[in-house]
């Protein structure tokens, strides 16, 4: 393995707490009612094409993309469309969605539901991209950027490396880890498919060193795949960030404000690679995903293969219920996940885990004055000065925030994690980003 690589600037190392690392993926029973929000990807929400009372099968298209950065949504269950209504999303907002009453489990005929492994890739690059687009694939790491867009580099840009993100640098989460252990073969075929679609000959799978079993397993399997190598990485948050991962694996820096393709790289999550395998080889759209249910008080930390639309209450029940002293529910990991306002929200394409935090863990510490220790600048993986940016945003000095490159912030939370004064730095950074973003859009319009 040699010396472990990592990214150069900043970074923190929070307690790993990978409680569900040894729990094999369980298939969760079907929900009675599936709630499918229409906005499941970054970009424009999808447009429903079914109406109340329609019978749907598993895998049937129920909502289609409404723009370039948008995706198809397929029914994750079979049954009757109960209604098209506003459904509550994780943040408590009501957004349009489709509610389906489940009846049996009848799959669309075009989907191959057998377990046979199909190694041979018969489709050409364009066919792969079409299939990926049709299947409604998004980045499974949580950002939910439509996958097919990443497979079509803008004119003049050529991809050189495909980097598969198996880092899972978020504490607690283990869904990618389990997927690599249990579906390694499929994931590697998916990687091969992505390589073909992009026309690259080299793929690197980056895995952090706290998953030695996954590194070994994938390294052994990867011997049969030409061009795919495994890169063990030093444990360091936020290594799963695209730009950090590129820096760690191929030592290239994505220029400020640019996409990874600028340095010839395309990054995909292991979950996405697996979904690509299913979509291309099995014709199965994105209707389920692996979700970790974890937390210090959870009786049975586990990883579930859950259909999209399953209420998270059902996942928690499968892990023997909501612990008595739960104070916060996080959709995703503790560093970048979103706090949920209620349990009535469904699993969506971007749900990588449900973290139940104890009451005593869920409150922030009391804020005290900044002592200018500059630890936030030391840990910032983007080389920014969070203390300055948050102050600028707080005082509405958005011009300063823009000059100091607030838009480069990847919202990893390292600054706030490390701040001895417990200042909500990232809150203000986000505020600054949204305000500066709006100002920049206005300016571009003019």
């Amino acid at each position, binding site marked *: 393995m040699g010396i472990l690589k990592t990214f150069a600037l900043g970074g923190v190392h929070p307690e790993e707490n990978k409680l569900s690392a040894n729990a094999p993926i369980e298939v969760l029973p079907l929900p009675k009612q599936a709630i499918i929000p229409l906005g499941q990807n970054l970009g424009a929400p999808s447009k429903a094409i079914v109406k109340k009372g329609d019978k749907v099968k598993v895998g049937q298209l129920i909502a289609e993309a409404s723009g370039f950065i948008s995706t198809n949504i397929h029914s994750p269950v079979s049954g009757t469309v109960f209604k098209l209504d506003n459904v509550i999303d994780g943040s408590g*907002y009501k957004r349009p969605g489709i509610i389906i009453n489940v009846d049996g489990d009848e799959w669309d005929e075009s989907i191959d539901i057998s377990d046979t492994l199909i190694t041979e890739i018969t489709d050409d690059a364009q066919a792969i991209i079409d299939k990926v687009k049709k299947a409604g694939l998004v980045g499974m790491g949580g950002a939910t950027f439509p996958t097919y867009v990443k497979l079509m580099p803008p004119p003049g840009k050529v991809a050189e490396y495909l980097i598969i993100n198996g880092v899972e640098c978020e504490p607690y989460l283990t869904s990618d880890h389990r997927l690599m252990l249990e579906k390694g073969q499929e994931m590697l075929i998916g990687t091969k498919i992505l390589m073909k679609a992009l026309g690259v000959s080299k793929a690197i799978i980056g895995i952090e060193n706290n998953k030695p079993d996954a590194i070994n397993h994938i390294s052994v399997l990867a011997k049969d795949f030409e061009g795919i190598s495994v890169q063990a990485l030093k444990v360091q948050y936020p290594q799963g960030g695209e730009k950090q991962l590129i820096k760690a694996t191929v030592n290239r820096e994505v220029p400020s404000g640019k996409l990874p393709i600028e340095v010839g790289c395309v990054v995909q999550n292991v979950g996405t690679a697996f979904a690509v395998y299913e979509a291309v080889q099995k014709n199965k759209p994105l209707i389920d995903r692996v979700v970790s249910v974890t937390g210090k008080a959870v009786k049975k930390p586990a990883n579930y293969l859950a259909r999209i639309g399953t209420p998270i209450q059902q996942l928690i029940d499968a892990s023997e219920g909501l612990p008595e002293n739960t104070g916060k529910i996080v959709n995703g990991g503790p560093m970048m996940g979103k*706090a949920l*306002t209620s349990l009535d929200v469904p699993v969506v394409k971007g749900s990588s885990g449900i973290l139940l935090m104890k009451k005593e863990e869920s409150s922030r510490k009391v804020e005290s004055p900044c002592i200018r220790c500059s630890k936030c600048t030391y840990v910032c993986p983007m080389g920014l000065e969070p203390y300055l940016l948050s102050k600028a945003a707080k005082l509405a000095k958005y011009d300063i925030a823009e000059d100091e490159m607030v838009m480069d912030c990847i919202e990893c939370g390292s600054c706030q994690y490390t701040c001895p004064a417990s200042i909500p730095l990232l809150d203000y950074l986000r505020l600054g980003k*949204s305000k500066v973003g709006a100002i920049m859009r206005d300016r571009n319009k003019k």
Partner: protein
Amino acid sequence: MDNVILIAVIALGSLGLVAAVILYFIASKFKVFEDPKIDEVEEALPAANCGGCGEPGCRAFAESCVKTAKETKALEGLNCPVGGNDVMQDVGKILGLEVEAKAPMIAVVRCHGSKTNSPEKVNYEGATSCAFAHALYAGEGGCMHGCLGLGDCVDVCDFDAIHMNPETGLPEVNDKCTACNACVVACPRDIIELRKKGPKGKRIFVSCINEEKGAPAKKNCQVACIGCSKCFKVCPHDAITMNSFLAYIDFEKCTLCRKCVVECPTNAIHEINFKPRKPRPEKPAASVERKPAPKKVEEKVEAGQTAVKEEKKETPNDNKE
């Protein structure tokens, strides 16, 4: 010795002369003509530089006043909300124009989801910024249209006219409001609206902007507008419009007849600065006659919606707040 003094005088004198000539030519070359009226108009403005008129400051406003007056012989679309009619009349006098009087406006907070009306369902921790909280979640009470109570409107107010009421967790506007529009822009949920101040500060408005259907709206807030259209039907002046389960009172058409207020089943329609009405016939409560002098009320709170509630329902038992 005389020589030295002479040389010094001549040298300095000629130097001064040359400089004076250069200065004269430069000054005449780069002279910028400015209408002296701009200065006069600026003098008449309140010098708050609040930007309420839409211009970057009072000087810019004065410039555009003079420019528009020259071009169109009117001051169409130009109004200094802070100075109000008096100032605009003065500006008109300077520019030799008639300015028609505009009704004074005031900021109105159209949400009454206080801690009692819309009980907390989750507990928010983080930056005291409505803009951030708006992006993060729907709100402690669960209403995605309601006031977040973190005071972005208070922060932007230059006139000390809007304050948070710690009991209700809602902002309240007082008489210092100049309708400069800053809080309207600052509110990420568009709750605050500029409305006609009304005679003696009397005004009626729907204190809710939730367009959801009745049941989900009421689930989060007991004083939400449920879109029942009762006010719409009762209004004799067509001042009320219904827009997807939300009533809106057009302040230009409203005659302050107060018919809609009693009709509203959720008390979402607020009346401000009215004398307490006589006890309703169906509620024959032997109430304690509270007679606040109207003047006093006006001084005290303008949009004190809590106070309004108290005035309307006279029986203390009814007083839920």
